[in-house]
């Protein structure tokens, strides 16, 4: 990135902060619109939530009692919070790699201009993305139903299983089934990311490779892949963050059940903040604390991972 940093006016080593700020005045001007949106609709609500997390507050009346870190202490002892936390981690690890791989394969195939119907195929693969979750929930409940559902008919008919499988009702299977539905719904977006990445491969490389007599598969493996590989980090990050937003799908299908078997973090937060047992008050403060704690923990895990990667790299011989 430093290579792009070319336009700082020549100045003495003792340049004051004011001068540097002034030198970058156009940059700051460019930042204004983004900063306003970021500050108003991301940063501010987040800070507000962090404040709520210190309150005993239902979210709908004006009684807000400041309780300090009590919500956090209670959360750490709440087995359902801990279980939901690991379920979210599991879900992300289960879906993201699959979604990325599937999206990549589809993108590489459908990037071929000579494939006449590629635009149609892309649109078809993209269709689940735009289909409302409420509809998907109904359709999938019927598709996966152990009672005359087409998928069960297929696998029992083929003799793969003896009895119909309760994909969404079995505590052991429900997370796998939801992961499958999730990947199906969102792979279209990942494919778009990869397609966008593929556009950065310069035309000439394909030409050059062809002149050298390289096969299509080899072009993909040795020419295209190294170029788009760096995008994997960004795409993986985006997919991972999106996977934490599986809430609408789960709420519309299993509502976190059976008996919490599919209660991921967002379902936990929703349950405590908006859907308490009938006749009792919601706990927005507690739910906010869960959100903050979850975020911090995920960040901690990510930082640990980055550190671990750096460490192994440093050990590699010859690395600068």
């Amino acid at each position, binding site marked *: 990135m430093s290579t792009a940093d070319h336009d700082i006016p020549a100045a003495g080593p003792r340049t004051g902060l004011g001068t540097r700020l002034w030198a970058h005045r156009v940059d700051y001007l460019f930042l204004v619109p983004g900063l306003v949106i970021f500050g108003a609709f991301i940063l501010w609500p987040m800070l507000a939530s962090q404040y709520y997390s210190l309150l005993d507050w239902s*979210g709908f*009346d004006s009684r807000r009692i400041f309780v300090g870190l009590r919500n956090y202490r209670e959360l750490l002892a*709440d087995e359902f919070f801990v279980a939901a936390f690991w379920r979210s981690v599991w879900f992300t690890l289960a879906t993201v790699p699959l979604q990325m791989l599937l999206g990549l394969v589809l993108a590489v195939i459908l990037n071929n201009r000579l494939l006449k119907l590629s635009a149609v195929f892309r649109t078809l693969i993209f269709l689940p993305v735009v289909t409302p979750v409420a509809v998907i929930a109904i359709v999938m*409940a019927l598709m996966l*139903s152990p009672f005359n559902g087409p998928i069960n008919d297929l696998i029992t008919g083929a003799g793969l299983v003896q009895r119909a499988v309760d994909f969404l009702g079995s*505590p052991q299977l429900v997370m796998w089934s939801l992961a499958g539905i999730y990947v199906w719904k969102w792979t279209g977006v990942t494919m778009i990311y990869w397609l966008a990445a593929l556009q950065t491969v310069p035309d000439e490389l394909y030409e050059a490779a062809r002149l050298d007599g390289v096969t299509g598969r080899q072009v993909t493996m040795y020419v295209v892949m190294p170029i788009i590989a760096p995008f994997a980090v960004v795409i993986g990050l985006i997919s991972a963050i999106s996977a934490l937003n599986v809430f609408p799908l789960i709420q519309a299908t299993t509502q976190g*059940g*059976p008996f919490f078997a599919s209660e991921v973090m967002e379902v936990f937060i929703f349950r405590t903040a908006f859907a308490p047992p009938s006749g009792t*008050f919601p706990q927005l403060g507690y739910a906010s604390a869960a959100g903050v704690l979850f975020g911090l923990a995920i960040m901690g895990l990510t930082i640990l991972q980055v550190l671990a990667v750096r460490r192994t790299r440093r050990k590699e011989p010859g690395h600068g």
Partner: protein
Amino acid sequence: MIYRRTPMSRRGFLAGASALGIAAAARPAFAQDAAFDFGEPMMDMPAPNGPLRWLDSGDQKGVFFEPFLAEYGQARGIETVYDGLPWSEIATVVPLGVRNGSAPDAFTLPLDMPPAVAIDQGWVQPLDPYIPDIAEWRAGFPAGSFVEGINMRDGQTYGLPFTSDRRSSCLLLFGREAMALTEFEPSPENPLTWDQFRAAARQITENSGGQIPGFIIGGAQVNRWRDVTLQMASRAGAHFGMAGFVTGFDYTDGEYKLNSPEVVGAVELLLAMRDDGSVFPGVLSLNAPQARAFTAQGNAGMILQGPWNVPIWEAENPDFDFGFTWTPAPEGADGRTYTNSLPATANMMFLNADAQNPAHAAEVFRLMGTLEGQTAWANVVGPSDPAIFPAANEQAQMSDRSRAVIALQEQQVRATPVPYSANTGFVEVARLFQMPTPDIAQTVQGLFAGQLTDVQGSLDTLNQAMSDALDAAIEEANAGGANVTRDELVFADWDPMTDYSG
């Protein structure tokens, strides 16, 4: 549902939803012969200040109020806007609307909010200044409609109790074709015992070659497990509160009874039916509307569900021949099922403290508390949300089956005492009470799904946790100056076979 003021939009839905089968009518029949007579204004009405806006939780209420308000608006020269929203949205929309002044003139409170809290918050205002003959008007309601601590506060009237909570969400509904596969002929006069219920489910399943599972439940919705278990336990003779901090609380001795033999028996019945293989496969991922749709299709034999199915099925599934009876009870038992108060608090309407058109909203409230208004309601909604005036249900147009369902519920459902009338300090307890996790609904779902295995043990744990949570809430409320004791929740004079009348 969100209903809007498009005149034609209602027709299709009305055709489906109305109990009357007046499919072709452009509007629901509020009155038998002609248009609803709104009469003379109850007072010198102020000029409209923008549209009259109304918000409730939709469904059948939307079917009635959207056109009813529109006609009222025509009669009084005011524009009207109706919105019906799911509860999860009301919980957000009403508080935010109140805060920034965009809340409607009349609204329902979030589902979990005791009215006393809304009154303390200054969200709502009393109806007394707007209804000139309010004492007389209140006297027209059946006893128990206005409860201090619920819709009354310091002698002022706040909430409009226009529907009765004398409903059971767990009546036994069944397809006659499926039931013909069994040796039983249930009817309101001839309810099924638990053993017969189980046997019927097994016979339907077996005799249909597995094509019609005997019993279905919307098991993804945990509240269905709570309702089915607690109502069957009530029929077995347990008598306790049904929601909130009094869930499973026995008012006669002040103890929770969630681990009583009645509750254990009800859960074991469900597990036995599961083990028989007579429960619809995949119920743990079905919500209640899906489960009901399967029943009406003849894909499942029996369901424990509410009276609202009757008019819907009659209109949308005219070929579906179905019957209904009491919630099953064990051999020799004939308990009732319970509601926490006679008026349905979820339907109760309140007047916005900052209403733009308070007089108009109050006039609609007043109309809903007259025999004419109540009859208009019953004509459209039938047994789904029974009118609170028994006379209105009697003279309304509805199918014999609908009338019979209301009659059965008159026998089956009883009102428990109301903690808030004993001491309004219990509002604080309700606010502070932290429901244990898993609660009764989740526990039963876990037992059914097999993640929990020890029925008695799980329920013992739950019962103790409920009791501890109540003590903690009382202690905390008292620390805040509420001044309540657990003894005040004992109503030794309550006969569980009758409504508690205070």
